[in-house]
């Protein structure tokens, strides 16, 4: 049985609870075991390193050291920001002995000796579990979905997907019976990192992504990042204002759609948490 350490990340406790809930439910249904890393801490996002560059490594490293201590050699992190920070820190430490020593000095009562493998739950499903093993109970027939990868799910580039034109989520959606639309903005940034400090920038970038999804004929956007979800969903009313149109585009976590196809009940998957309601769409599809 596949087992991973699970790093939920801060947003999974409040703002993106539906991502956490649907990830756990989907993994349980697939028979993949998730063991939450005990006493995990914030990965630092993009902001903490502004105050001290070394924290960009030590904060993720504490989580890696905890995982090692708890016997978890491979971990998954659903928030792509956390995923990027943990993955980059693990690789940087693995490639640099001096950095490992420095990190271990900075971690009281912990030490990181191994290279923890960090995966995103999307790639754990497509690469480790295998699409051919997914038993689709309720196909997502008639659903046109724009698969949005955003920036750091595929960048810095890695072995899981192509950074410029990734495909794993599209393949997964096709497996579930949905129709992924041709979506040229799939790797464009939503600007989430500066959404509080430079809102107009994020609204502009998010507008381009949402407009591309609309023009591609998508019924909804599927994504894998709480920051992107906030930008595309919570801020959609502000984007509407800037574009002078009502987009009415539901923004769903890919795990919510996997859950539906696996036969999980709609009311267990947190759809009521989305600001732009997916209810009319789900009604139309018969869920």
């Amino acid at each position, binding site marked *: 049985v596949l087992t991973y350490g699970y790093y939920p990340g801060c947003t999974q406790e409040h703002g993106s609870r539906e991502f956490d809930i649907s990830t756990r439910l989907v993994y349980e249904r697939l028979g993949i075991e998730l063991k939450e890393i005990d006493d995990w801490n914030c990965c630092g996002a993009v902001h*903490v390193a*502004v*105050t001290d560059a070394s924290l960009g490594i030590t904060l993720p490293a504490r989580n890696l050291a905890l995982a090692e201590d708890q016997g978890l050699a491979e971990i998954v992190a659903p928030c792509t920001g956390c995923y990027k920070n943990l993955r980059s820190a693990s690789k940087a430490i693995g490639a640099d002995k001096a950095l490992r020593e420095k990190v271990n000095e900075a971690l009281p009562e912990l030490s990181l000796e191994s290279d923890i493998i960090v995966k995103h739950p999307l790639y754990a499903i497509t690469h480790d579990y295998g699409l051919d093993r997914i038993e689709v109970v309720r196909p997502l027939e008639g659903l046109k979905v724009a698969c949005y990868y955003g*920036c750091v799910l595929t960048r810095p580039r890695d072995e899981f997907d192509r950074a410029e034109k990734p495909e794993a989520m599209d393949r997964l959606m096709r497996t579930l019976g949905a129709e992924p639309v041709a979506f040229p903005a799939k790797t464009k940034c939503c600007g989430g990192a500066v959404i509080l*400090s430079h809102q107009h*920038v994020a609204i502009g970038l998010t507008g381009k992504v949402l407009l591309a999804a609309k023009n591609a004929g998508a019924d909804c956007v599927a994504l894998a990042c709480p920051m992107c979800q906030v930008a595309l969903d919570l801020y959609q009313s502000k984007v509407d204002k800037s574009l002078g149109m009502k987009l009415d585009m539901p923004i769903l976590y890919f795990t919510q759609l996997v859950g539906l196809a696996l036969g999980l009940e709609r009311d267990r998957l947190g759809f009521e948490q989305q600001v732009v309601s997916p209810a009319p769409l789900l009604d139309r599809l018969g869920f």
Partner: protein
Amino acid sequence: MAEMTGFLDEILATRGGERVLQCYQCGTCSGSCPVLAEMDYGPRRIMHMISMGQEEEVLSSPDIWYCVSCYSCANRCPRDIEVTDVMATLRSTAVKKGYTKDPEAKLGRAFANTIRQHGRSFEVELMIRFYASTLDVLGLLGMTPLALKMLSKGKLSFVPKNIKDTRTWRKVFGTAGRREEVA
């Protein structure tokens, strides 16, 4: 403050900054940057200015604070320069040296102080710290409708979720972010 030539050496000594001198100014980074229109110079010229040791121009430029950390530039750089990581280095260097006019610098400090306190993010406290440091009343008012939406969707909590091991956590964190006043 370091001298003109010292700045280049300083960046070359950072993780990700080692290859800055390999830049041949092709402009792939600026051509790939989604926020180039907001910038004074763009990443290509920033790389050049680093190599010329133009510390003050680089560290006081708004460009480093508009970077959205999307890794489009670094992913395409034909010289394998970690442009995105260099931008992050420039931000922390700017803060260290007192160039902290941008609200993003204040957000970084507000975020660090929130994390220091709880070990995990706590949105309500982060917002209070951020808007208290920017004194941006209009910005705060503009956020109110969104905050109400979050509340109605159960996405905003007024109770932080702290990590358990607070004793060693403070040591991990060091002194980062502590200074509340802004230079």
